[in-house]
């Protein structure tokens, strides 16, 4: 390989420079955005009571931290999301396996799944709160409901798109249905499972924040609602920013998982 020719070196330089340019621009946008926010608030171009400013948000952050509640709120929301997300993926996959196993059951349940998929799951929240009570349980169930149906549909489609001839191959070896599942269907669907994970990260956040709006006494969703009720937009804004950072980090975790699987492949 000619990896030391001048042309190749120039090419690598060009690729790296472009990459650096993109990252620098991304960071610049962030800095300019916050700077502009701060300046226009301080100069009263916009009303800082309505928009808050980064410095006011920082103060609120420090205040929350000093009260000792900040990490509790973050941990509660994260915990609920991760739990809802894992349960949604796990149970969804399990149900998808059952539907794959029995074509009859899949056909019978098809219209119900379609309806459940179209139904905004948040509409069920009042019922859930009645059934499981006002608390973390209800929030997790709402998050679970939002992600489970999409998981079932995505994963089942993945299962069904496995090459028929590969199934036939295993059958000529005399494989049982369970062996087809474990040797072929599940490993062949790992990429689908990972993309289901990616969708579920986002959906679980929606579910948890929704749930917290309705029932919580703690968590970031609670801070947002509470801040709104006491006209403390600083608190609302900083909670949203923490939320954005957490959602980004969680998405990154799944992306790393995906990348690791890809390199293994």
């Amino acid at each position, binding site marked *: 390989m000619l990896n030391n020719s001048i042309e190749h070196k120039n090419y690598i330089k060009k690729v790296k420079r472009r990459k650096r340019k993109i990252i620098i621009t991304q960071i610049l946008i962030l800095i300019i955005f916050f700077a502009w926010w701060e300046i226009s608030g301080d100069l009263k171009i916009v009303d800082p009571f309505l928009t808050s400013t980064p410095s006011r948000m920082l103060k609120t952050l420090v205040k929350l931290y000093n009260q000792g509640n900040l990490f509790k709120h973050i941990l509660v929301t994260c915990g609920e999301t991760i739990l809802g997300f894992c349960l949604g993926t796990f149970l969804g996959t399990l149900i998808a396996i059952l539907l794959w196993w029995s074509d009859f059951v899949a056909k019978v349940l098809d219209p119900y799944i379609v309806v459940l998929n179209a139904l905004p799951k948040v509409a069920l929240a009042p019922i859930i709160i009645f059934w499981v009570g006002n608390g973390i349980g209800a929030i997790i169930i709402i998050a679970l409901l939002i992600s489970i149906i999409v998981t079932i549909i995505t994963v089942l489609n993945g299962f069904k798109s496995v090459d028929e001839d590969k199934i036939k191959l295993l059958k000529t*070896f005399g494989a049982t249905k369970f062996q087809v599942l474990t040797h072929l269907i599940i490993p062949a669907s790992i990429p689908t499972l990972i993309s289901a994970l990616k969708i579920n990260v986002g959906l679980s956040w929606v579910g948890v924040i929704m749930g917290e709006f309705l029932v919580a006494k703690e968590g970031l969703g609670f801070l947002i609602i509470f801040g709104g009720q006491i006209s403390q937009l600083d608190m609302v804004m900083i909670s949203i920013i923490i939320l954005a950072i957490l959602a980004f980090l969680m998405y990154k975790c799944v992306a790393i998982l995906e990348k690791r699987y890809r390199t293994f492949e």
Partner: protein
Amino acid sequence: MNKVDIKNICMNYHTITSETIVLKNISFSVKEEEFLTIVGPSGCGKSTLLNIIAGLLTPSKGKIYIHENKIRTLEKNIGYMFQKDQLFEWISVWENVILGLKIQKIFTEKNKDYVISLLRHYGLWNFRNHYPKQLSGGMRQRVALIRTLATNPDVLLLDEPFSALDYQTRLKISNEVFKIIRDEKKTVIMVTHDIPEAISMSDRIIILSNRPAEIRKTEIVNFSKEYSSPLKRREAPNFRLYFNSIWKELDSNVK
């Protein structure tokens, strides 16, 4: 001695709106270590016939005997090779070739040694830890063949096994596969629409008619000793004659 007896196979396909007769009274036998090829117009039911022999489909009528033992369900002594290699991309070459042994729960030392000897003999041992993606099309098809041979099947069923390969690889691989099959003394039933491929590999060729498929003609292929491999056979003077005879038979079918 006959290895496979196919007796009066009939097959009808049912849909809500119609019933289609696909196979009509097909009977033939395959001798021990014989290479038999079935050719026919496309859509005539060649693959259906192969699936029935493999036990993947139940025929409407008729029986199939292997070793004079009646097949009731899926017999485990059948090896099936597909158009595409159907290797599992997520496991290594080694795990691919022992797949059948693991499924049948006969991954014994003896069988393991047999697979190792196959890999060594056919130049794939050094690639055992590679993933299928890292292999060329021809090598992949060889891995697929070894996976099929690993369970030591009595009969190999080849369903257009080379048609997904490019022309050059196809000639080379059909040559190699032929050699492996001869070395391992296997009985083979192959389905193809490629007449030269059929002539270059087979001992006998069965020509099917249009649907509903019946046996039109059986052509016994004979080459003198010096034309020992499929590639060499293509140069034999009587190759052309076989081609013309089969071509005419197929052509009279297409209206």
